[in-house]
């Protein structure tokens, strides 16, 4: 009952000084805004990486065998020399592996290069991602066809000049007309379009639909493999479930060591990557951000708390007489203490709510103007509210304590 009364009186006091209240809690507002915006963007990035990035770059539940790492953040000159000395992966390697893998799964080969594609009437597209692949590539990458069909295992093995193209490339070369059955030229080799893949979207602002996928054993072979026939960039093995990924990786490693005749103790002369492992750098970055964030936010909140404390001290001294009146009417120390604590924590809590609103807007604005997605995490809102209330309580304790200790005689006499 008395608690409810303290809350009511606190709200009344806040209502009487709205503008002052607003400025009082600016620190909290900024702190919480920052907190919400950054967490929202990190979480958004996280979802993006989980959903889009992994699938687009690696495929889901796959192990990729490469000559050297696809993403390199470090590596000195010696490391590069070692990478260059490694044997290339070949079609024969792939066939050899496919015949031996015990873990159930699908194996695909692919190699990629960028180049020009020519359509009818002199239309052309630049910087097309031209991929040479096996028929299983579509299955491994979970790529569905929008129109037409993918090339068959037979067509791939025979190296027939057929191609499946992305939607952006189809639009550039055929401008709305049906591309199926039409001829295009890749590196001047004629290819017949047999399918168009579903829209793949963008990755970091880069279109994933400006692509052409043709059998790796076809005329493009030399081009996508940078002049070396019968080699591949990647041998990708896809398993059905994520708990089979590690097993597939271990098996691929032992077969490859046998294939390359590596002695025990000798280092691998190939790389095995999984989406989870390769994105470790992102997990690391995310952890750093999530750890650094509280420090940045707490600076705002500490400043905010100091401001609130000062304004509350002013408020207490302005209302000395009111406190005296309340005490003479029988208010105990706890009643006064509670009233001022409620006031500071309600103020700061409202500031936190404001900060949450601004933070979400800010994140949405970033989302609208950049490819970064935003995803508001429920826990960040709960955290923000708790922090807001906490700042209010902490900053209100001393002023409220001072108010509760006022001598009623002195307080009543004050002007």
């Amino acid at each position, binding site marked *: 009952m008395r608690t409810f009364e303290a809350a009511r009186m606190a709200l009344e006091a806040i209502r009487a000084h709205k503008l002052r209240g607003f400025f009082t809690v600016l620190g909290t507002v900024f702190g919480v805004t920052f907190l919400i915006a950054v967490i929202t963007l990190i979480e958004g990035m996280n979802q993006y990486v989980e959903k889009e990035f992994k699938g687009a770059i690696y495929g889901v539940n796959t192990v990729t065998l490469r000559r050297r790492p696809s993403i390199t953040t470090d590596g000195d000159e010696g490391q590069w020399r070692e990478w260059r000395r490694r044997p290339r992966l070949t079609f024969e390697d792939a066939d050899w592996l496919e015949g031996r893998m015990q873990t159930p799964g699908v194996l695909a080969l692919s190699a990629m290069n960028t180049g020009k594609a020519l359509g009818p009437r002199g239309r052309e597209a630049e910087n097309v991602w031209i991929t040479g692949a096996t028929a299983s590539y579509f299955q491994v990458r979970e790529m569905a066809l929008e129109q037409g069909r993918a090339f068959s295992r037979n067509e791939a093995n025979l190296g027939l000049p057929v191609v499946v193209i992305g939607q952006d490339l189809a639009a550039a070369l055929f401008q709305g007309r049906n591309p199926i059955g039409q001829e295009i030229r890749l590196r001047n080799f004629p290819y017949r379009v047999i399918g168009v893949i579903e829209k793949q979207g963008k990755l970091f602002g880069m279109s994933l639909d400006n692509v052409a996928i043709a059998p790796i054993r076809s005329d493009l072979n030399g081009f996508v493999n940078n002049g070396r026939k019968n080699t591949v960039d990647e041998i990708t093995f896809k398993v059905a479930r994520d708990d089979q990924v590690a097993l597939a990786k271990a098996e691929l490693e032992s077969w490859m060591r046998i294939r390359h005749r590596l002695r025990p103790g000798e280092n691998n002369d190939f790389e095995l990557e999984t989406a989870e492992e390769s994105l470790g750098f992102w997990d690391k970055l995310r952890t750093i951000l999530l750890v650094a964030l509280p420090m940045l936010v707490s600076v705002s909140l500490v400043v905010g708390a100091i401001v609130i404390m000062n304004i509350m001290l002013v408020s207490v001294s302005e209302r000395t007489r009111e406190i005296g009146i309340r005490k003479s009417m029988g208010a*105990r120390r706890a009643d006064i203490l509670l009233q001022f604590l409620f006031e500071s924590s309600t103020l700061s809590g409202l500031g936190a709510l404001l900060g949450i609103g601004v933070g979400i807007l800010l994140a949405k604005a970033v989302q609208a103007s950049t490819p970064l997605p935003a995803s508001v995490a429920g826990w960040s809102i709960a955290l923000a509210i708790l922090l807001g209330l906490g700042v209010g309580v902490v900053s209100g304790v001393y002023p409220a304590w001072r108010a509760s200790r006022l001598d009623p005689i002195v307080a009543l006499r004050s002007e």
Partner: protein
Amino acid sequence: MSAGTPLIETRRLEKHYQMGAETVRALRGVDLTIYPNEYVAIMGPSGSGKSTFMNLIGCLDTPTSGDYILNGNHVAGMDDDQLARVRNREIGFVFQTFNLLPRSTALENVELPLVYGGVGAKERRERAAAALRSVELGDRLDHRPNELSGGQRQRVAIARALVTRPSIILADEPTGNLDSRTSEEIMTLFERLHAEGQTVIMVTHEPDIARHAHRVVTLRDGVISSDETQDGIRRETLAEAAPAPAGV
């Protein structure tokens, strides 16, 4: 009138203040007994210890030494929160400067002591409205102090003092900020309360106001210099004649 248990009893009440190196003895042994339904004026020039005495009577402060028994409560040894409880239950304050909360309505002001007394919202509102009606402000419940005249403000304050049905109304220069006509109105109100059985203690330095009381206690240099009823009989004589208070 003087029969029965005393409402207020002070014994050798002393209050000292430390002013730098010097100890000021504001009260130097005050013995006073007040019985229910008395109307007492406490007078004295400034520096007589009158205010200090009022603060002690009002349980806003505790004595340095001596005893103060208010309606059976030994106030002298109480801590802050116990004093607050006694103030809430036993004392209704009326101040010279009214001391209403400026942002609250008349009704909310009168409800305030009931809030701290833990009275439920509905009963609080009813009792506060009744108290305001009893001071003829039944039509001003939702007015804020700045929308009321001085006399009306003081009547709100009196309603606030009455609403807890306290043992004593303690009024400190209640007419000090009012013109003479309004002062008369307020004094008439106090007389009516007294007639209805309320114990009233009034601190004043105006003989005209003190005249309304039935007993005038004068303090000088921290001791009682005179204690007279309206008919001029010294109070001590009466008190000595009365049966000794039992059980205190």
